[in-house]
C-alpha cells in the first residue's frame, strides 16, 4: 500500500478555488502530494481554506483552476466515491432517523459496506441503535457520522474538525479506533484540527495552509529534524541570514528566540532546543507570510507581525 507505486492519497496541481466568480481565491496555486498510508494533519488558521480543500477532495466542490486527485481518481467520480469518505465539519445527519436507520442508509447508499465495523463504532460509544439521531448528544452524533464514514471501508478518510464536539476521553477512544483501522487496512487519513497537541502523537505528515496557499507538505519527522528553536543575543541574528530560514522570531529586550529551519551547521552562540511538532506548526502559522528568508529587518517589524 505504501510502496513507491501506490497512488498518492491526495495530489494537487495548480489547484485554485473561489466561491464566487468575482470574489477572492479561497485556495490558490496549491501544489502538493500526500503519499498514501499517512495520517495527515491539515492545519491552518480560520479561513485558511482547510474545509474548502477537504470539500474539493470529497467532490462536494469543483476546482476553478488546476486539479486535485484522490487516489489518482477525480473527486466525485464513481471510483472515487467508493474509496473516499468525507466527514464534514457540521456532521449533518437526518435527525428523525434512528441510528439503525442511519447505518441502513449507509448500507443502501454504498456499493460496499462493512456493517460490523459501522455497528462497532456506534457500540463503542454505547449508543443504542434504536435512538433517534436528534436525541443524541453532539459527541454521540459525531460517532454515528464517523460510523457512516468507516462503514464504507474507505481507502482515504477525510475528516474536517472531527474532534471538536468530543470530550477528552471520547477523543482518545476515537483517535485510537481510527489509528487501529488505519494500521489494519492501510487507510490514509487527512484530518484538519485546531487542537495541535492531539496531532503530535498521531500524525506523520503535515499539510499547512496559509491564506489559501500550501505552505508545508512534509513528513512530520523530517520537520522535527530540520527545525530548531534558537535562543541568544539579538545582535547575532545576521549569522542566520543566507543559509537558514527563520520561520518566526521574537525579541525580548536584547534576547532573540527564533524558530529556524536549519540548512547546514549553525554559527554563533545559540542555545539550541528541539521543537515539538506543535511549536513548528504554531511558528509557521504565525510567520510573516511574504518572505520567509531572514532579512535585516528591524525587530519591531517581526514583533508586530507575530
Amino acid at each position, binding site marked *: 500500500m505504501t510502496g513507491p507505486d501506490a497512488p498518492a492519497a491526495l495530489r494537487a496541481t495548480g489547484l485554485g478555488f473561489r466561491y464566487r466568480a468575482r470574489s477572492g481565491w479561497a485556495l490558490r496555486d496549491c501544489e502538493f502530494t500526500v503519499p498514501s498510508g499517512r495520517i495527515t494533519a491539515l492545519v491552518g488558521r480560520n479561513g485558511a481554506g482547510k474545509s474548502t480543500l477537504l470539500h474539493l477532495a470529497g467532490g462536494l466542490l469543483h476546482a476553478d483552476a488546476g486539479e486535485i486527485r484522490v487516489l489518482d481518481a477525480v473527486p466525485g467520480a464513481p471510483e472515487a*466515491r467508493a474509496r473516499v469518505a468525507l466527514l464534514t465539519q457540521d456532521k449533518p445527519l437526518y435527525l428523525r432517523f434512528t441510528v439503525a436507520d442511519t447505518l441502513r442508509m449507509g448500507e443502501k447508499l454504498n456499493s460496499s459496506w462493512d456493517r460490523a465495523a459501522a455497528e462497532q463504532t456506534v457500540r463503542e460509544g454505547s449508543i443504542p441503535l434504536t435512538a433517534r439521531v436528534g436525541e443524541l448528544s453532539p459527541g454521540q452524533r459525531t460517532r454515528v*457520522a464517523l460510523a457512516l464514514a468507516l462503514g464504507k471501508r474507505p481507502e482515504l478518510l477525510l475528516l474536517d474538525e472531527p474532534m471538536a464536539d468530543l470530550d477528552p476521553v471520547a477523543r482518545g477512544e476515537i483517535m485510537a479506533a481510527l489509528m487501529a483501522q488505519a494500521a489494519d487496512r492501510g487507510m490514509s487519513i487527512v484530518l484538519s484540527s485546531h487542537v495541535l497537541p492531539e496531532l503530535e502523537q498521531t500524525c506523520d505528515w503535515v499539510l499547512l495552509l496559509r491564506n489559501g496557499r500550501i505552505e508545508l507538505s512534509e513528513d512530520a519527522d523530517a520537520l522535527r529534524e530540520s527545525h530548531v528553536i534558537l535562543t541568544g543575543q539579538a545582535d547575532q541574528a545576521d549569522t542566520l541570514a543566507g543559509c537558514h530560514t527563520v520561520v518566526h522570531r521574537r525579541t525580548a529586550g536584547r534576547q532573540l528566540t527564533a524558530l529556524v529551519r536549519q540548512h547546514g551547521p549553525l554559527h554563533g552562540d545559540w542555545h539550541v532546543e528541539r521543537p515539538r511538532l506543535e511549536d513548528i506548526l504554531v511558528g509557521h502559522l504565525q510567520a510573516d507570510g511574504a518572505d520567509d528568508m531572514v532579512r535585516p529587518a528591524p525587530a519591531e517589524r517581526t514583533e508586530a507581525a507575530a
Partner: protein
Amino acid sequence: MNSSLWHGSLWLAWRQQRVLAGVGAAVLAAAAAIAAYYRSGMLDALRSGLFDHCDPGPVSCTRSDTGVPLLLDIQPLQYLGALNIALPVIIGVFWGAPLLGRDRELGTHRMVLTQGVSRGQWFASRFALAAATAVTLSGLLAGVFAWWWRPAADRSYGLFWYETTALSGSGPRVVAAALFGLAAGTLLGLLARRVLAAMGLTLLVTGAMTLVLEWTHKTRLLVPPHIYTSAGSVPKLPMGEKWSAGHYGLITASGRRDDVMNCPFPSGAQLKDCMDRNGYVARFYEANPAGDYWAFQWTDTAVLGGLALLLTAVTVLLLRRRI
C-alpha cells in the same frame, strides 16, 4: 451505473417522502369516498324523474307545480374542482420546495453525496418519485372529478364545462399543473437559502401562474371564440351549452360590428325597421362551443407541461453549481 445504488437512492427518497405520499393517499381516499356518496345521491335525484322535463340548455328549469328552480347539489363537486385548481400550489409549496431545499438548509446533502451515490442519482431518484406520486395523485383526483361530474355535465341543473371549477379542475391540465407546481417548487428550493423562503416564493409563483391561466380563459386569449351570426332579424341561434364571450351586437354589410343598443328591440318588426334604417344585415355573438373544452385543456396542458420541463431542465443545469 450500479443498480444497487439506484435502489439505495430510491430507498432514501421513499424514506423521506413516505409521509407526504401517505397524506396524498389519505386526501385521495377522502375525495373518492365523498365523491361516491354525493354522486349516488345525485343519481338518485336524477332517477326520481324530477328533472326529466328539463331542457339541456342554460336556462334553469323549474318545478312544474311550484315554480321553484330545480338544481342538483353540485356544491361538493365544485369544492373538489377548487382543490384540483389549488393542487399545483399545494404540491409546489409542501413537496417541491423542501425536495432539495430541506437538505440544502440542513446540509444533509453533503452527508448523502459523500456516500456512494452521485448527485445525478440523488436528484433523479427523489424527483422521479415525487413526480410519479404527483402525477398519480393529480390524475386520480381529476378522474374522480370527471366520474362525479359526468351525470351533471352541461345541464342547466348541473355544472357546465366552462365553469371555472370544471374547466380548470378536471382533465389533463390538472396533471400538468401538478408537475408544474412540483418543478417550480423544486427549482425555488434550490435557489432560495431557506426552505420557508422557498415555500413563500413557490406560493407566489404557482398562485400567479394559476391566476394568469384563469385570465387567459376569461379573455379567450389562447382559445379564441367563434362568431355566430344570424342573418337579418331571424331569431338568434340558441346559446345552448356554448360559453359566451360576452360580445354581441349588429353587423353592417361592410362587416362593421356595432353595439346591440343601437337597435334595442327583441326580434320583430321594430327590430327589422331599425336594422334596415342603419344598414345592419345580421346579428352576431361570440362564444366557444362545448368542443372547445378540449382546446382549453390541451393548451393549458401544453403551457404547464412545457414550463414544468423547462424548470426541471434549469434545475438539472444548476444542480452542480448550487449543491
